[in-house]
């Protein structure tokens, strides 16, 4: 799960990591009031959970009251990568002496928590990792003891020559690690971490992602979820314990299992079609789950054909068949349905569906091809 920069900074505040003086605003009037409080010049930053805000014009420095109003109106009205900007952060313009990068993730390869530092700030760390891996300094936390003080000091001394700044950085590193562990974070990043003209270290930007598997023990974090800026279908799917991601095509896919669901999308594309979505109905599927899945799928008006690809194991094909029948009646489905149902109780499923007007497919290749043909 992702949160906004302003929410991440609230967490930083709780962990005593210094941030600029700033306020989150929803309207131009609020921005004007905040700028008067903070003093000019001010930075106005769009609060959207996608990268490349600066390039898209979502971050501006305003030096006058006129600019404050103009920029606030422009940014609050814009869309960045298709996401409307509903909130901005109004922040003091920090006089920057130097910028660097500090981030923590769980390293999948080493199976340990790793702290990464880079002397360049504002970078995309994955890009640096690929192109200039030697520019990233890494220290690993001991899984059972934690991040040791001297390891944090290594980070500080790598980034800064001035020992006072280096040790202040070490303290920030330890705080960032503490919040990473305590909140089941999957990414905690200060990018850039800046030294201002008076030698103070400030987290100019903040990014915290959370491990979805850990959310059950952090209801306060779950409550930070921005429902407004999430796809309504994705939210609904989440509530109903289904896994759904909207894509841009017109062949709606209903699949059991995440790997097979991805492979089904890929196969549709492979044969020249465009998948409308990723949708995993999960393991032990009941007819209700299939109903829920179809309801979500059909909210996407681009869907012209529905392709069921079910490999029954725990999932019983007859459950899926009952779900399809019920949904056809109650949701008044007009789109043709291609069904490939194999595995547990497939014979029963065929019996249930024989009068239902579906197009049956023997294999997943056959199903994908038939779905594509129906569009022509």
């Amino acid at each position, binding site marked *: 799960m992702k949160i906004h920069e302003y929410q991440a900074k609230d967490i930083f505040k709780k962990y005593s990591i210094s941030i600029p003086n700033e306020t989150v605003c929803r309207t131009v009037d609020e921005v004007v009031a905040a700028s008067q409080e903070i003093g000019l010049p001010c930075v106005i930053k769009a609060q959207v959970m996608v990268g490349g805000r600066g390039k898209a014009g979502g971050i501006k420095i305003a030096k006058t009251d006129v600019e404050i109003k103009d920029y606030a109106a422009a940014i609050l009205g814009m869309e960045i990568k298709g996401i409307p900007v509903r909130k901005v952060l109004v922040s003091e313009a920090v006089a920057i002496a130097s910028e660097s990068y500090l981030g923590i993730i*769980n390293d999948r390869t080493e199976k340990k928590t790793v702290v990464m530092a880079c002397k360049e700030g504002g970078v995309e760390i994955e890009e640096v990792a690929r192109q200039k891996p030697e520019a990233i300094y890494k220290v690993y936390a001991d899984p059972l003891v934690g991040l040791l003080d001297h390891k944090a000091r290594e980070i500080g001394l790598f980034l800064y020559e001035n020992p006072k700044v280096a040790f202040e950085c070490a303290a920030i590193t330890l705080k960032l690690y503490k919040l990473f562990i305590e909140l089941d974070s*999957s990414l905690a990043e200060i990018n850039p971490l800046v030294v201002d003209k008076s030698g103070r270290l400030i987290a100019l930007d903040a990014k915290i992602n959370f491990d979805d598997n850990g959310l*059950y023990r952090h209801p306060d974090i779950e409550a930070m979820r921005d429902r407004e800026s999430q796809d309504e279908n994705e939210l609904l799917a989440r509530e109903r314990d289904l896994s759904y991601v909207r894509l841009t095509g017109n062949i709606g896919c209903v699949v059991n299992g995440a790997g*097979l669901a991805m492979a089904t999308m890929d196969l549709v594309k*492979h044969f020249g079609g465009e998948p409308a979505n990723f949708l995993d109905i999960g393991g032990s599927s009941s007819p209700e789950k299939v109903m829920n899945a179809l309801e979500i799928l059909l909210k996407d008006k681009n869907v012209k054909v529905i392709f069921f690809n079910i490999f029954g194991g725990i999932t019983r094909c007859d459950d899926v068949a009952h779900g399809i029948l019920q949904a056809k009646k109650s949701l008044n489905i007009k789109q043709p349905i291609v069904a490939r149902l194999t595995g547990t109780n497939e014979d029963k499923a065929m019996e249930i569906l024989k009068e239902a007007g579906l197009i049956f497919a023997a294999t997943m290749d056959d199903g994908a091809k038939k779905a594509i043909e129906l569009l022509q």
Partner: protein
Amino acid sequence: MSILVNNDTKLVVQGITGRDGSFHTRQMLNYGTKVVAGVTPGKGGIDIEGIPVFNTVAEAVEKTNANTSVIFVPSKFAVSAIYEAIDAGITLIVCISEGIPTIEMVKITAYLKHKDCRLVGPNSPGVVSPGQAKVGILPGHIFKKGAVGVISRSGTLTYEIVDHITKVGLGQSTCIGIGGDPIIGTKFIDCLELFANDNDTEAVVIVGEIGGRDEQDTAYYIKENFKKPVFGFVAGKTAPPDKRMGHAGAIISGTSGTAAEKVKIFKECSIKVGDTPAEVADLVKRAV
């Protein structure tokens, strides 16, 4: 031969009294797996499918000599179930449960370091050595005894590919679902090390997906160290960046961990890649 599970597997089912645990205990017994014990704290003394249930894994091991455990408990209890199995002297744990926080897997990995115990999963569909033992939830009927080793991060996609392999007339030595989480107990390379020494395995199929760089590291390992032919498949070519595709580990982070990157490195390392599940089986058929 085969790897990980075989005729010597004596299985304890943790969470045997739950809905999934009892259902799959029956399925595993039907397959011929030697299920010797079940564990559910507080339910010790009863029988499920004729299998004695104990309160602790230690007691189950003491009374039945169980050497392998399969975990079906809800995610909130799965972490302690894993530690309990490790401490009871179980040498192979297959964790079917999903939803374990990543940081807990970091700790479990460290705890396992000096123990004589291997963890497969979490979020694994299980391990099958056809004709010998099935541990987990994979549907037994799609497997056939043979010489192809299968290692996969997925569940149903594994069934799809195994089914194709069986239908082209080949069979499997062992099929391992390593699990779809970011941090897992046993990775592709760990399985390959075992397959390298298994005389029954002539070729290996690797079923990967988006997220992380395990496939990439595995490809380089194969190029340097692994002599048997390897075939690959990568799911998620059409997956958008920064969206979790079901599995906790299946996420393209910025521009890294894409299917294209993985396929490219597979090919650079002389691993033949099928564009579709059916194609993978055809490639294996032609080579073996």
